[in-house]
């Protein structure tokens, strides 16, 4: 057999690609995993994971010089000194904007599984049925029951901590024991229980951090230093979880520095034959062949790849026959909420650094509630004591100032909403042939904006949390809305959506491209609607489900 022939090729090694590699290798396929960026070795390449805060010359912040180098990354917190190496260099991989889009990417082994926030929530039928109910976009081709076993499947391996709450709009996962709320959050939660008919709840955040060991992985040590990489393998990443499992099968070949830039397509068989990659080290172009291709390069990059493929048949790329490829770009909108002070806990202090917080599941437009906008939002937040940073003006100078500052400050509690963005055909990405990246490839152009539905929702997102805080007993409550531009939620979705009809969707119910059934797209591109839950857990479940279907179809000789 030729060196470059495999059963399956997986493009991208982030959250989705890692799962594709694990599932396909465990089912016995010879899998080639292609990653465009560098290798990041588990543990040994987490260079900053054990540094002390004072070891950073700018204490983890950013410098003026960095801001000049990273005009896009600087738009939000990802431009920082601690894990800068894991963010895409603006000057190597530029993108253009008809309307502003904040795009935060990681091109290296593991993708953004290394830097993600790890919040993990299932969607429910309120989400899967939403488009059909509202008469918006197209209907999801699946329902919760289709995905439920696959959620359970991925959760057991990834390790999601959380509490069983039995909420219809936010189904429970298979949980490891929850990281509990702290005393102030607990008090807020119990004060809140009697208000708003019990509909607004503060529950422990559900995150992919272990509270119990899994094979090869230790439980979390409560350092809240996850985005430096975890030396204990205590949070889910490709490196800690899916890659070791794939490697253990002996069926995986992993190549880094391979920029996949085309899915090769045979117009006679109507199947992909493999992929074409540019070796970023040698500059060589290599063709790899396989029976199936899993496209997991993250939503926008997977779409970029489809747009560059099979252009001899469809000028706008593989999957464009529907007219929807690149359209319906979604994200979650945030940077809006409220905060306040909680009195009465001055004798209590924080212990350890929990890498999560609390969550308020969606309650708007559910269970009889009706707003002048569609869908809803959840909140992520936490309560903590202020440190010396508070610099209270009455503190004076000298020994007493010093003594006062080493005392913890007041307890604050706050959160940001995470709101659903509706699928909208006019929100889109396209290829910009006028601008090329470092390797000569045309770049992505973004053309998307917040709609009226989202803007109306933001008013509730600020006001509701102020109400929640007041009901929870907080004082000195302030709302905020720090302006949001699409992308800053870092949950890009929807540009190759699933649907029931090849005329209005790019993928079928098994994430197969309608026009090339041996090509599966299982990252955020496939999302038909966004829900308001952090989406990555859903990508994991969809990927595992698609992999299972792909192998079954291969066995039936259907692909």
């Amino acid at each position, binding site marked *: 057999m030729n060196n470059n022939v495999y059963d399956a090729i997986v493009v991208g090694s982030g959250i989705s690609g890692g799962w594709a590699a694990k599932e396909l290798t465990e089912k016995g396929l010879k899998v080639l995993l292609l990653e465009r960026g*560098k*290798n990041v*070795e*588990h*543990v*040994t390449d987490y260079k900053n*994971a*054990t540094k*002390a*805060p*004072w070891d950073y010359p*700018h204490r983890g912040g950013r410098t*003026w010089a*960095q801001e000049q*180098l990273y005009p896009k990354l600087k738009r939000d917190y990802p431009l920082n*000194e601690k894990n*800068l*190496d894991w963010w895409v*260099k603006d*000057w*190597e991989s530029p993108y253009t904007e008809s309307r502003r889009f904040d795009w935060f990417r990681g091109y290296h082994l593991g993708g953004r599984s290394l830097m993600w926030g790890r919040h993990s929530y299932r969607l429910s039928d309120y989400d899967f049925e939403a488009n059909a109910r509202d008469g918006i976009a197209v209907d999801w081709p699946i329902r919760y029951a289709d995905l439920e076993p696959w959620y359970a499947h991925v959760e057991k391996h990834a390790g999601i901590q959380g509490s069983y709450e039995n909420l219809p709009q936010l189904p429970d996962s298979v949980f490891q024991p929850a990281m509990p709320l702290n*005393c102030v959050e607990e008090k807020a939660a119990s004060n809140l229980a009697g208000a708003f008919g019990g509909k607004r709840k503060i529950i422990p955040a559900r995150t992919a951090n272990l509270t119990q060991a899994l094979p090869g992985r*230790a439980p979390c*040590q409560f*350092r809240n230093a996850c985005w430096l990489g975890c*030396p*204990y*393998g205590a949070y889910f990443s490709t490196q800690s979880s899916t*890659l*070791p499992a794939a*490697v*253990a099968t002996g069926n995986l070949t*992993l190549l880094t*520095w391979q920029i996949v830039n085309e899915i090769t397509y045979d117009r006679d068989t109507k199947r992909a034959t493999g992929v074409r990659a540019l070796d970023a*080290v040698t*500059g060589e172009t290599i063709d790899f062949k396989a029976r199936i291709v899993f496209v997991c390069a993250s939503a926008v990059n997977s779409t970029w790849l489809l747009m560059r493929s099979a252009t001899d048949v469809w000028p706008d790329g593989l999957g464009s026959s529907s007219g929807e490829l690149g359209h319906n770009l979604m994200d979650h909108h945030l940077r809006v909420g409220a905060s306040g002070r909680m009195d009465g806990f*001055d*004798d*209590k*202090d924080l*212990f350890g650094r929990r890498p999560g917080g609390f969550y308020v599941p969606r309650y708007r437009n559910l269970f009889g509630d009706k707003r002048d906008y569609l869908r809803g939002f959840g909140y992520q937040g936490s309560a903590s004591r202020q440190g*010396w*940073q508070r*610099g209270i*003006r*009455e*503190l*004076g*100078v*000298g*020994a*007493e*100032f*010093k*003594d*006062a*500052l*080493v*005392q*913890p400050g007041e307890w604050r509690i706050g959160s940001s909403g995470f709101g659903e963005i509706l699928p909208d055909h006019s929100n889109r990405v396209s290829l910009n042939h006028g601008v090329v990246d470092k390797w000569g490839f045309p770049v992505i152009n973004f053309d998307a904006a917040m709609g009226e539905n989202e803007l109306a929702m933001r008013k509730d997102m600020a006001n509701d949390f102020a109400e929640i805080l007041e009901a929870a007993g907080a004082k000195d409550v302030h709302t905020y809305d720090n302006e949001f531009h699409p992308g800053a939620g870092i949950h890009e979705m929807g540009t190759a959506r699933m649907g029931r009809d090849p005329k209005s969707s790019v993928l079928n119910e098994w994430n197969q491209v309608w026009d090339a059934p041996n090509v599966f797209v299982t990252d955020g591109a496939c999302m038909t609607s966004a829900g308001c839950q952090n989406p990555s857990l859903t990508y994991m479940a969809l990927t595992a489900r698609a992999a299972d279907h792909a192998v079954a179809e291969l066995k039936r000789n259907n692909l």
Partner: protein
Amino acid sequence: MSGPQKKPTGAPRLARRRVLQLIAAAATAPVFWSAPGIATMGIKRGPAGTATDPDLINPNIPWELQLTDAERLLLEVLCDIIIPADEKSPAASAIGAHDFIDEWVSAPYDTMAGDLDRIRNGLAWLEAESARRFDGEFAQLEPAQQTAICDDICHPPAAKPEHAEAAWFFDRVRMLTAMAFYTTREGMNDVGYVGNVPLDRWNPPPAAALKHVGLK
């Protein structure tokens, strides 16, 4: 130091520190992890000409420092009045708080645009006030005399109208001094920060300690 002050609330400082020491005692050196054999997987290589990130390890100051020697000297004295040495940690100048403030006010960032003027004017006011009230340079005054001036300006809400601007200046220096100090090893040690210590096993502190800090 006199002047209006709010008594800090919270658990007694020593008690809290004792709890933190307990955590430190539970921490031991070896890192627990076992990575199944992926160490052999990747090839470490990079495309020719890949740009590297700015050097984060060797700090350099890419802009010109603006304060004069005299201003820096005065700032140094002021920093140490704000955060003096005690049995647990050094004074602010020992960790270079005045250097930090010089770098800060010299920066080209929009957010710091007003700081150079504010601090320069404030330092000039401090000298003028020392000359007016005690006929000397601030740095040479008796501690009680320095204190007397600082008392007038260390609490902005209570400052007399003629001291309003100086109080604002002092507030800024105090914030920057604290920022410089408490982000160093010495300052974080003062706060009782235990830090990023590897644990071979999660040993929760004794029930009595948890009870003491109100966690159980």
